[in-house]
């Protein structure tokens, strides 16, 4: 084998040797995994990720929304501001496997920026990385704010403020648009941009809009999760070695996502997987409604158990488990390859 297989390297200190065991026990509890019953071994990664060293846990990524700081402009409009910093950071994407990532705020995916339709958004972007980066928002905005060229493409050590209106409402994404594009995206520069509908603008669909708008009573009963479907090409051969929702392979299989069956579930699902044309989410034992791009208040797909998204596509999934018996309900990419390489998860539906 060629000695040219050189890879950026990780400090090996602290990698536990052979396999262990808390994670394995978590899986052992996942009794609904049929394969465990009749196959030797298991489809899993061996060991545990040091989430503390990463600076984030997969379960935080799932439920954390970054609402920024709000103020009111002289004309009475809400102005929402964030400061987002790009930094180079090595992250452990699977137990013992370290990836030299480029990140927003030291995490992959970057913060899930959340705002409300019609607000004025100001994103102060600081490039503390080693290459030129940008924030290219999937929204309706001016060319000068596009993050492709000119001042909005930010050289290392400099900064730029993106100012846009929060339109259209929906489930969107942002990512770096510096060239080479594939490398800048798959190295980790992406995140969700969620624009809640303003109920005042949707009198005909008021209940649906209120259910989506954070801060309302109707919204309070929802259990919301952000899932950015991604992959990592650790040997830089333009094929992903690991797949996941929110970066860490098998994270929600080792530690299922606990949900109360009495409350509805909403997933903001974004696909930023590079190299593979599509990704998908398939849910076991249930069907759901899907809102492509989240830009409508009525579902674009009803009663499905699998949705497919191309690169950059995203949408909202709404699931009702209220009439199900409690237990572990699996969900994963229905590309079996992705599932077996890490994009495998469970809802632990509890009787609450």
């Amino acid at each position: 084998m060629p000695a040219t297989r050189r890879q950026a390297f990780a400090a090996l200190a602290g990698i536990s040797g052979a396999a262990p065991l808390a994670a394995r026990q978590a899986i052992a509890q996942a009794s609904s995994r049929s394969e465990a019953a009749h196959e030797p071994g298991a489809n899993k990664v061996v060991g545990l990720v040091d989430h503390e060293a990463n600076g984030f846990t997969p379960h935080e990524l799932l439920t954390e929304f970054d609402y920024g700081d709000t103020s009111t402009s002289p004309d009475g409009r809400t102005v929402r501001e964030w400061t987002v910093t790009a930094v180079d950071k090595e992250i452990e994407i699977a137990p013992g496997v370290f990836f030299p990532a480029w990140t927003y705020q030291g995490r992959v995916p970057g913060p899930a920026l959340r705002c409300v339709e019609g607000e004025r958004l100001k994103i102060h972007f600081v490039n503390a990385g080693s290459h030129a980066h940008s924030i290219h928002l999937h929204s309706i905005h001016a060319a000068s704010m596009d993050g492709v060229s000119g001042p909005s493409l930010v050289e290392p050590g400099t900064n730029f403020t993106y100012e846009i209106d929060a339109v259209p409402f929906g489930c969107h994404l942002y990512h770096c648009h510096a060239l080479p594009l594939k490398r800048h995206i798959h190295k980790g520069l992406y995140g969700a941009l969620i624009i809640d509908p303003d109920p005042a603008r949707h009198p005909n669909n008021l209940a649906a809009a209120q259910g989506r708008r954070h801060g309302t009573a109707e919204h309070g009963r929802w259990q919301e999760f952000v899932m950015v479907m991604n992959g990592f090409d650790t040997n830089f051969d333009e094929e992903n070695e690991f797949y996941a929702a929110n970066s860490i392979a098998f994270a929600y299989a080792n530690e299922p996502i606990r949900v109360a069956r009495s409350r509805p579930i909403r997933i903001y699902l974004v696909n930023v997987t590079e190299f593979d044309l599509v990704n998908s989410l398939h849910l076991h034992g249930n069907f759901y409604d899907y809102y492509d791009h989240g830009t409508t208040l009525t579902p674009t797909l009803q009663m499905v158990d699998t949705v497919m998204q191309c690169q950059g596509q995203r949408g909202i999934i709404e699931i009702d488990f209220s009439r199900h018996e409690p237990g572990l309900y699996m969900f994963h990419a229905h590309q079996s390859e992705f599932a077996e390489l890490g994009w495998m998860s469970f809802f632990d539906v509890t009787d609450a």
Partner: protein
Amino acid sequence: MSDGTEEVITRPSGGRFHGRWLWLALPFLGLAAILAVILIGRPLEQLSASAPPVEELSVDAVTLTPGLISLSVQADGSSPVTVAQIQVDGAYRDFTAEPSNEIGRLDVATFDIPYPWVEGETHHLVMVTASGATFEHTIDVAVAELSASSAAIGQMILVGLFLGFAPVAAGLLAYPAMRGAPEGTMGFMFALTIGLLGYLFVDTLSEGLEVAEGALGRLRAGSLVWVSMAATTMLLIAIGRRGGRPPEGLALAAFIAFGIGVHNFGEGLAVGAALGAGAAALATFLVVGFAIHNVSEGFAIAAPLTDEEPGLLTFAGLAALAGLPAVPGVMLGATAISPYWTALCFGIGAGAILQVIIEVGAMLIRRSPPRGAMTVVNLLGGTLGLAIMYGTALLV
């Protein structure tokens, strides 16, 4: 060292001798100084500051038992290589590592991967290191490890006997005919022998070099093949000529038998490896091919004996020397020994054959009439020897 210095000062008579040894230490002191500058002064730090590690892994052996894949993996690199995760057929799998999944330079670790592998099918393994580098290994045809049952061992011994001993013994049966051959055909016979051995030499050497590529680069198994070949040749020539005369007659026949024996050990390794790697369906075919191929090895052993009166026991001994090494070869090969040691075996085999080519050639020249050994008849003999070996090799 201080002893020597003392003697230089106190005893000038013996000092010259000890002084000379002392001077020999100078280059080592120089080297120590160079290493001290590099390792302590670190003038090359700039070069390696941001350099990623070099990682290399080689799979030495794979054994399959029901529901389990076991890998023996050797590592090399600028620092220990950690196998963080393992894919089997594009899926991450549970595994355990012994002694550890962090493998030091040139150390070996064993990985046990519970997996429902499928008899007769191909399985792909990918090892992912801590740095995200990947190393692939393919199990071409999955078959269970040959068990250590007496039946399996009996089978392997049988394969080895059919492969080596039986055909060589059959070839030796040509002896009466060769002995009865007219005087002028001796040159032809020796030339034929050289041709036969020449093919075996090339074959052994190229197989050794091929298998060497599977070993870690740092081990330089390719160079080892050449070096072990040269060393073996020189050693055997020295042994053969220890009495001041080159070997002839029975001694030469014994050397030829030994060289062929080492070669057949290598052939046994190849057949054993084929059995172990799931080419069992090919076993009969392989053994038939090698048997035909190896009959002519008997001719080569018999050729120097035409002036002698060897007994039956001598023939049996020669056949055993040339043919029996195939038996342990098959058994070792079936247990999948590492490419490094296999390459060494082939290197020694090639060296042993080269020695007898040299000795048979020398004898041919000594016995040739003044016009030289390069007669048309001799050239025909040599060519025929090569052609026979090449032709029968096509059967394997």
